[in-house]
Each structure stands twice: as C-alpha cells, then as structure tokens.
C-alpha cells in the first residue's frame, strides 16, 4: 500500500511539474524597481502593473517587483538578463548621473546597456523648513541664509538627488560652507526630522511632506522646478528656477535590456503611454502621489542626465567632501 501511495505521489508530482511548464500565450514582463517597496517608484509601478491588463489587448501584462539595493540591484539585473528577456528595470538620474560621477566603480553598467522605454513620472521635490523659522518663500530663505543662520538639511540618503538639490540651491546662494546635510534612511524619516527639530530643512517628494505640513510642523518654502507648482496642496509654491537657481526634476525611467527588438520596445512604450493617459491613473498620480505624467523621448532623457551631471560636477564637493 505504502509503495502504491509513493508511486502515485511521484507520478503526480512529475505530471504536475510538466503540466505547469506549458505556458500561455500571454506575455508577462517583470518590472524591477531597485528602490524601497514602500517608496514612490514602487507604488507607481504597482499601480501601472495593475492597469496593464486593461491596455495590453491581452498580450503584455506587467508584474511589479521591488528589490531595494539601487546600483547593486541594477548590477544584478544587468548581469542576469539579455536582449529580449521579458524584464524591465527602473533607473534614474541617481544612477546615470550621480553614482556614475561620484563612484563609477559601483556601476557594472552604463546607459548603453539599456533600451529606453518610457519615463514613468516626474516629481518636483520641495524644500520644507521648520515652521518656527517662519520662512514662507524664496525671499525669506535668501534673507535667512544671508544672515548667516545655520542651514541643516535632512535628506534621503547621503548622495541622492535630494542631497544634490540642497547643495545646488544653498551652494549657489553662497552658503555651501554653512550647509550641513543630514542623511536619513527614508524620505519619510527625513521629512519627520524637520518637525522634530533635528534639522532646519528637508528636501523631499511633495507627498512625503504633506502630512507634516498639514499638521503645521513645517512650511514649504520652494519647489525644485522652473516655475511655481500649479496644482495640489502646494499650488503657488515658487520654483527655484524663477530666480535662476539650478534644479532638476526627479524622474524614473523604465528600461529594457540593450538589443531588445525595437518593435517590442515600441509596443512596451505604447502600453506605458496608454496606462499613463488613463484618467484614473492621471488623477491618482496628480492628487494622491503629487506627481506629474511626463512622457519623454530618448533625447529628452539624455538631456536630463546631462543637466544633472553638470550640477553634480559643480556641487559634488559640498555633498561628498
């Protein structure tokens, strides 16, 4: 009896393994986000993946995955994928401009290892200040800095986009020596640091400072964009570009492996464009995540990377010492 059961179990298992090997015709593309699963990029990726079956005519579905690790995750991704693998990965100015300039040895890839698919979103970072400082706009900030007051800024990560935006703003105000960057391990922690009085300022995504702002702990002084924010709870907040200070937007590029068929890349881009034009998606990105839909061409991407690289080159001494 025991032998019969064993034979049945064995046969069943082997049959199951063979059966499960037979796939369907639907293509499933895994999208790896190399940042925190609770972060902005991972959340948008999840939302896009959930929307993908509605726009793929049952051909492509996206499966979102978040593996925290930044450059290391993308290194692994590049080494384990080849052209036409059904894998996508996120990369941004952090990898192509900041890490490539500061610590190129950390990267086992370059922009040439990827095929650009689409930009998932654009985020305009904001500078928030401890409400007790009573800084409401750029003029107030300039006066504050001019008076020689301490400038300590909470940022997410030691050498991330936030750190360089802070360095570029205060550096170009001539307060590079006054600036003390305090790195936190998440954007949420950095935002809370100002409210707790550990730092005077924080640079963060708009959505990450919203709760603290609504509780009255911080004032939002300026936005890292060319003009004032148009929509949402921070509408009217001045853009640093209007006063000639350097800035860049935070972007999240969806990339395929180099050599992937151009037709397939175009198909993926079309899918992302449809998802990003979806009314519910646009509303969610604008109202909940406080992000913008900002579809791009490869030339736009290269221009963005070059802009960030020039800022990094100019202010790297302030950030990295």
């Amino acid at each position, binding site marked *: 009896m025991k032998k019969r059961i064993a034979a049945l179990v064995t046969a069943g298992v082997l049959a199951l393994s063979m059966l499960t090997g037979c796939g369907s015709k639907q293509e499933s593309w895994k999208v790896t986000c190399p940042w925190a699963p609770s972060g902005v990029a991972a959340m948008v990726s999840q939302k896009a993946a959930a929307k993908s079956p509605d726009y793929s005519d049952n051909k492509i579905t996206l499966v979102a995955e978040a*593996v925290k*690790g930044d450059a*290391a995750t993308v*290194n692994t991704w590049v080494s384990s994928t080849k052209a036409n693998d059904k894998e996508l990965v996120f990369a941004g100015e952090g990898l192509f401009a900041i890490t490539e300039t500061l610590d190129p040895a950390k990267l086992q890839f370059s922009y040439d290892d990827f095929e650009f698919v689409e930009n998932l979103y654009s985020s305009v970072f904001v500078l928030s200040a401890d409400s007790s400082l009573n800084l409401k706009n750029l003029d107030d900030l300039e006066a504050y800095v001019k008076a020689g007051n301490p400038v*300590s800024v909470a940022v997410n990560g030691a050498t991330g986009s936030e750190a360089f935006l802070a360095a570029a703003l205060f550096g170009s105000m001539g307060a590079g020596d006054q600036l003390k960057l305090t790195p936190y391990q998440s954007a*949420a922690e950095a935002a*809370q640091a100002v409210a707790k009085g*550990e730092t005077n300022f924080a640079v963060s995504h708009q959505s990450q400072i919203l709760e603290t702002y609504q509780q009255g702990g911080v004032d939002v002084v300026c936005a890292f964009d060319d003009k004032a924010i148009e929509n949402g709870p921070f509408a009217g907040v001045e853009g640093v570009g209007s006063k000639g200070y350097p800035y860049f937007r935070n972007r999240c590029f969806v990339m395929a492996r180099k050599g992937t068929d151009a037709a397939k890349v175009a198909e993926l881009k079309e899918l992302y464009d449809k998802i990003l034009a979806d009314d519910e998606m646009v509303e969610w990105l604008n109202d909940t995540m406080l992000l913008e839909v900002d579809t791009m061409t490869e030339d736009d991407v290269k221009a963005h990377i070059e802009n960030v690289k020039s800022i990094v080159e100019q202010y790297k001494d302030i950030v990295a010492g």
Partner: protein
Amino acid sequence: MGLFDFIGPASGLLFTLENIIWINLGVFIGCVFAAIPGLSVILCIILFLPVTYTMRAIPGMMFLLGIYCAGGYGGSVSAILINTPGTPHAAATMLDGYPLSKMGRTKAALKIALYASTFGGIFSALVLLFLGPQVAKISAQLGTAEYFMVCLFGMTIIAGVSGKSLVKGIIAACLGLLISCVGADPMTSYDRFTFGIPRLYLGLDLAVTLIGLFALVEIIGKAELKRNELNLHAGKIGNDDGKITKDEYKRMFRPVLMGSIIGSCVGIVPGTGASEASWFSYNTAKNLSKHPEEFGHGSVEGVAAAESANNAVCGATLIPLLTLGIPGDGCVAIMLSALMINGLNPGLSLFTTDGAIMYAIMLGLILVNIFMFLQGKYLTSLFAKVVSIPQQILTPIIVIFCFAGAYSVNSSYFDLSVALVFGVMAWFMRKLELPAVPVLLGMVLGNMTETNFRRALLISDGSPKIFFSSVYCWIFIALIVVVIIGILRGKMKETKNAKVEQ
C-alpha cells in the same frame, strides 16, 4: 485615532479567506516543526520567510505569527509523548507532562497544554492590542539620540542570549555588528568591507545569512547523529478519555492566569524568552500551589503554568518590535525583516498611516490562537505521528528548502554561496562554543545603532552631550543600568552556585 476607529477597517482586512488559509497553514507548519525534536521554530520561520516575500503584509505576517505561536504549543506534544521537548521552552512542560502521560493520561496532558497555551496566547494578544499603541505614541517622540539609546537598550538582549559565557556572547555580537557594516555606508554611500565583490555593495541579506547560521548548521550537525538516532518512535496518543475534572480546572485557573501575566511581562523585556517565562511560571506555580509535592510527578498545575507562560510571550514580544523596532527574540527579529520588506517601518507612523494593517495584525494574533486551539483539538494525533518522521527524509528536504529560500531572496546563486559560508562559519562557532543568536541580534540592530549614533553626533556637531539631552535619554540610561546590574548579579549568582556545586 485609536483602537475603535481602526477596528472596522482592520477587521475588513483581516477576515479574508486568504488570511484564514495562511493562518491555518502557519499554525499547522509551526506545530509540525515544533513537535519534531531538533527542528526549532526559528528554523521554521527562516525556511518559510521567503514565501512571504511575494505576499502582502497581513497574510505574510499572519503566516509567520501562525508558525511562531503554534511553535509554543507544538513543542509540548513531543515533551508529553516521548519525554523530549520539541522546543527548548517546552522543557518545563515535560517535567509533569510526561509523568501524566505515563499515568495513562496522555490525552488529558495534551488537552491541558492546549487549553493553557490558548489562554496564554489570547491574553498576551490582548495585552499587545491595548498596550502596543500607547508605547508607539511614546516612540513617536523619540529623536535620533533617543533611538540610539533604544538600540543600546536592545543590545542588552545579548546578555540574555549569550548562554554560559557573557564574554563570548559579546564577541559574537561584535561579529554580528561587524557583518552589518558590510556594504554601502548608510551615511556616506562609500563601500565598506566589500573586498571588491560588487554583489556585496548591497550588504549581506539577513534572511540569507540566517539560513546559514541557523538552518544549514543544523544539517551539518546531523554528523553527530548515531544511526539508531535517525528514527524517533513516538508513543501512541493513548486510549484515555482525556477528561479533566472540575476540580482540576479549578486548580489550573490560578497557575494559567499567573503564567499568562508572567509570560506577558517577560515577553516585553527584550532578551528574555519563552524558556525563561515557562520556568519562572512553573516555579511560581509550585511555590503557590497547595500540592507542591505533585510537581514533577504529573501535576496538572505544572503543565498549565509552563504552557500558558511560554505562549503568553508571543504577543508581548511584538510590543517592542512594532513600536520601537527592537526584536525581543530571534524569531521576532526575522519577522522584522518580513515587515520591512512590505515597507512597514516600526514606530508610531505604523499605527497612524498604516493603522488598519497594524490593528489587523494585532487582532490576527487572537485569531491565530483560536485556530491553534482548533487544530490542536482535532489534529493532535497527526502531530504525534509527525514526531516519527525519519531524519533521512527530513534532512534533504530541509536543505532544499534552505537553498530555494536563499535563492529566492534576490534571485541569485551568489546568495546560496553566502548561506553556505555562514553555515560553515556557524559550525566553527559551535566548536568554539560561541552562541549564534547574538550574531543575529548584532546583524539586526547594527545598522540602526550605527546610523543613529553617527547621525546624532552629526546633528550635535560631534558633541556627546546629545545623548544626555532629553528625559527619554535618561529613562533609557536608567533602564540600561538596571538591566546591566541585574545581569551582573545573575551571573555572579550563577558562578557562586557553580562553585558550590563543585
């Protein structure tokens, strides 16, 4: 917002078919692992942790909590049946459980263990539900310096898990803390101890290293088994009616209540665990009993006291974990990574922004205990049979689970080699009598300790005065001093007793 605001949405999130299935699966697996001597609950949680990576927070945590809580009860099955505790904290249960079994009351002994475990578990789940949010409110007021003090307080756990030698415990903890330094410096992003291996920029993954430290070392440890130890023969579950008299229920009530309170108090203090709670409770019950002479000879009070206490620890250990990010023991330390992978960072924000999820997890603990009771009531005979699974079958299956788990963390074969290296390292540590749990705690607390230490000094421009700048800092300093004095007194007493025995 408090309990009553969140109870509606939390119930909605919790009471789904998916969660019920995962809870039951977790409880079943936990009981099976704990029932088999040599397989620990921590090993079980490590093996099944990768399964939760693809799950959302609530089903993932329910599954792990199912394993954790059921492990508390499962250990008593083999303790009662074959006089071998399935888990270390069932050792106190064995003292009276096995004699009861020999008296022909196996079913009654298992029933007492189950009832007491369930009561203890639900009691501590309620303690967590009402006390957790209050502790979280305090944690929200803690800044970087205070958090460093919390980490230092957490480090006192090491004393509790160092085994015989505190000096070796500290060495092992330093090793764990140093391992946590591998990878990118959290404050500057520069690499540390990567030896030119690009994969190490990311640091060493906790789940992978644990597979080596706790699971693979057990496999290598099979070398110590003699051929006649490959099969354990569990006794039959017995033909007694399993009846517990009214008088026995009355006698059990006080030790069960006392055990639940003791277990909850012990669980809140990091570094103590279910073993300490069950012995402490057993001793207290013996001292307060009208029939102390029955203890060790099949006392129902003894089984009830030990079992209620070791299960009451479960809920209480989650209080420092969910509110401060300080794991009370090794199992809970692993659960912390399950929370983090879902983007849930312990602290007050967890109770406000993700309040519904948090309350669902806390309410879920009650549900876990109810299902543990039901499975215990109807499946105990099956768990008893599981005790006899031969090592020949079990060993390779565990290895395959370990490797599959290690690979699935980052989809990389590199992690398998890391797990192997840690397995061999743990084997050498055994030969040097170095405890492994302090290494785990070092790895868990390392990053948090270093970051808060350095950031606090950065904020204060290098002045250490920041660590004495608030009331909370002083409270934690006082707590650390009290714990250290307690440890030193305990160690001195141990040394004195050892000398007297010699």
